């Protein structure tokens, strides 16, 4: 692994008048609430250690008040930590002098603020161009660019309005355009889409991902929307009361939550959309590489399954069923398996979201083969697997109905008996 772009080491943040004098309480492991009650100081962050790689979209989640905004503010040193180091490109940004810090902020990072932070006395366009202005870009160029970005966020026509004349979501988009306009390498986005409606939001997500694809920007993204996190995030970090409880890839977190907190956190997600086939498929147990029909039949019989996925050196070839092969086995048992005997079956690709393969999977009694771009059979997806994943039982092994109803406190109608006689 290359050295990380951003590295956070042992970061503490204690808010209040005399943070230093109370740090020992934090170190002694007192909880946030205890510290607040005892000293009136709020524990913002506690011993955060984190690495963010160049080019990834790193999502930060956590309960309201868990320290997300505080953490992201350290990345460009809008606040100084009580303790700890923030290293960007092997440079400790706590040690930058005023000029280098300025330079760093101009060139390296740009930020979308949770509460927008627009300049009320500038028009929308001037706001968007603000970052460029700070960089000293000429008027004409920055206006052109600002106009372009305004259009991209869907605010063409509002160039000369003032922020106070815009709706909340429009203001947020101005903040977004401002951040994108600077071409900074690292984007810090604090709930950047929270005030947007689903349509514009997904448009913005697409744009962001396209941008990232194209320019390999590093994006630190705070969001409360798990679907969003799972959709755009390469990795997700989860904070609780200022502590980092889990960092991992989306599917990891969804399927192997570190603790109850994380599990609760991810419970309500739309798994069908969040998870890809890859993450839930099983190894292809019904895989055969038999050369002849008889071989294949033998295989199937010994495995006691009525079907199989036929694979040869060139990869996945097709789906065969015992029933049909048996019909021709007598005559052509010795012949090699070939297209003529394959049956119609869906083939799904590992990166597809589950959502898109629900109908096909459910339509078929047998599992569907999962084939990657190289044509290799990488797994199979059965109806049961799908149902199990979709019904909230990430840690339990079997997808029992009871399990599901226990899990969901408000379940109403899953009784086996009619509700009333």
């Amino acid at each position, binding site marked *: 692994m290359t050295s990380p772009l951003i590295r956070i080491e042992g970061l503490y943040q204690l808010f209040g008048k005399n943070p230093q004098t109370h740090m020992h309480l934090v170190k002694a492991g007192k909880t946030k609430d205890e510290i607040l009650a005892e000293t009136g100081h709020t524990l913002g962050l506690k011993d955060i250690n984190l690495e963010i790689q160049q080019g990834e979209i790193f999502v930060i989640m956590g309960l309201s008040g868990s320290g997300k905004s505080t953490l992201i503010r350290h990345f460009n040193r809008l606040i100084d930590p009580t303790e700890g180091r923030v290293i960007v490109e092997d440079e400790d940004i706590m040690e930058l002098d005023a000029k280098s*810090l*300025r330079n760093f*902020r101009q060139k390296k990072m740009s930020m979308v603020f949770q509460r927008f*932070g*627009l300049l*009320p006395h500038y028009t929308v366009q001037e706001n968007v161009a603000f970052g460029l202005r*700070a960089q000293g870009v000429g008027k004409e160029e920055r206006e052109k660019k600002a106009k372009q970005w305004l259009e991209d966020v869907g605010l063409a026509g509002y160039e000369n309005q003032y922020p*106070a004349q815009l709706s909340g979501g429009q203001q947020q988009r101005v903040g977004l355009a401002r951040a994108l306009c*600077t071409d900074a390498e690292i984007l810090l986005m604090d709930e950047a889409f929270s005030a947007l409606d689903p349509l514009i939001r997904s448009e913005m997500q697409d744009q962001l991902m396209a941008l990232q694809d194209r320019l390999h920007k590093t994006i630190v993204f705070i969001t409360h929307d798990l679907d969003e996190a799972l959709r755009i995030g390469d990795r997700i970090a989860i904070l609780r009361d200022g502590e980092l409880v889990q960092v991992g890839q989306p599917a990891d977190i969804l399927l192997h939550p570190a603790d109850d907190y994380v599990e609760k956190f991810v419970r309500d997600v739309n798994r069908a959309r969040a998870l890809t086939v890859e993450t839930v498929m099983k190894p292809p147990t019904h895989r055969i590489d038999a050369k002849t029909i008889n071989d294949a039949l033998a295989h199937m019989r010994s495995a006691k399954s009525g079907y199989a996925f036929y694979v040869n050196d060139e990869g996945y070839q097709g789906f065969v069923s015992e029933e049909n092969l048996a019909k021709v086995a007598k005559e052509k048992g010795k012949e090699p398996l070939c297209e003529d005997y394959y049956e119609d079956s869906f083939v799904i690709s590992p990166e597809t979201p589950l959502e898109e393969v629900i109908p096909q999977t459910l339509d078929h009694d047998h599992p569907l083969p999962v084939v990657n771009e190289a044509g290799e059979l990488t797994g199979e997806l059965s109806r049961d697997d799908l149902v199990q994943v979709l019904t909230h039982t990430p840690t339990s092994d079997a997808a029992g109905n009871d399990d599901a109803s226990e899990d969901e406190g408000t379940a109403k109608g899953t009784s086996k008996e009619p509700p009333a006689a």
Partner: protein
Amino acid sequence: MSWLTEFPQLSRRDLLTLRQTLDEGYRSFSRSYGEAIENFFDPLLAFLVWFENLLVEAPWWVVIAAILGITHYAARSIKLTVGVGISLFLVGFFGMWEDTMSTLSIITVCTLISIALGIPMGILMARSHRAQSIITPVLDIMQTMPAFVYLIPVVMLLGIGKIPGLIAVIIYAIPPVIRLTNLGIRLVDKEVLEAADAYGVTPMQRLFNVQLPLAMPNIMAGINQTIMMALAMVVIASMIGVSGLGQPVLRSITNQYFTLGILNGAAIVVLAIIFDRVSQSYAKRSQRYMRSGS
């Protein structure tokens, strides 16, 4: 015990010696350096004289036209321009044209100098708590130390005339703009500043693009007060030989010509209102965003 009822004072003799020594000290200081200091201000004096002559000697309608032009450019309000025109005409009609022009010339210079020095001072103050805690008492002294106290020392140093008058006016008039610039900058929304910082603005950009524009309402209040103070000092300045509307006021008081006093006072007020309205509407025009709030 006498100190219970009487304040334990410096003895009269000690006080006397102290006073005499200091007085003598100042006298000898002014004797040795007065000349040099006076010369230092010569260019300014020349400018002041030139500017006053310009206003007084130019045909009155040229001056009025020029003032109306500035007014219109600054405020873009027909109503205001017409009002200014009428009041200037009335001032002339009641026979106060020359004095008014003299006063206008010195007050314009004083106000401009006060603003030019005051805003940077205010910025400095807003930037550091140290500076604030040093400058604040100095401002208190400047505003409350009676002009009468330093009038004579200044006159001894610089003679009577425009320069000491200018200094006295500026000393008295500059504090409001400093204070309110400071206050205005300190009241700027922290969130907005943070956003600007996050984009790596230079201190200058931060100041000129964010802090000053957002502090503008307060700064304008400061400028307004500075103008008011400067005009309030017109009479005091005339006590040390600054020509203008102050002299007829002093004359009226000694002779009990109330009407004369009121007319000349009114001319001062007219100048105040013109200065103030024009500067305020200029400022308001540059703060369009404030009106567009929901």
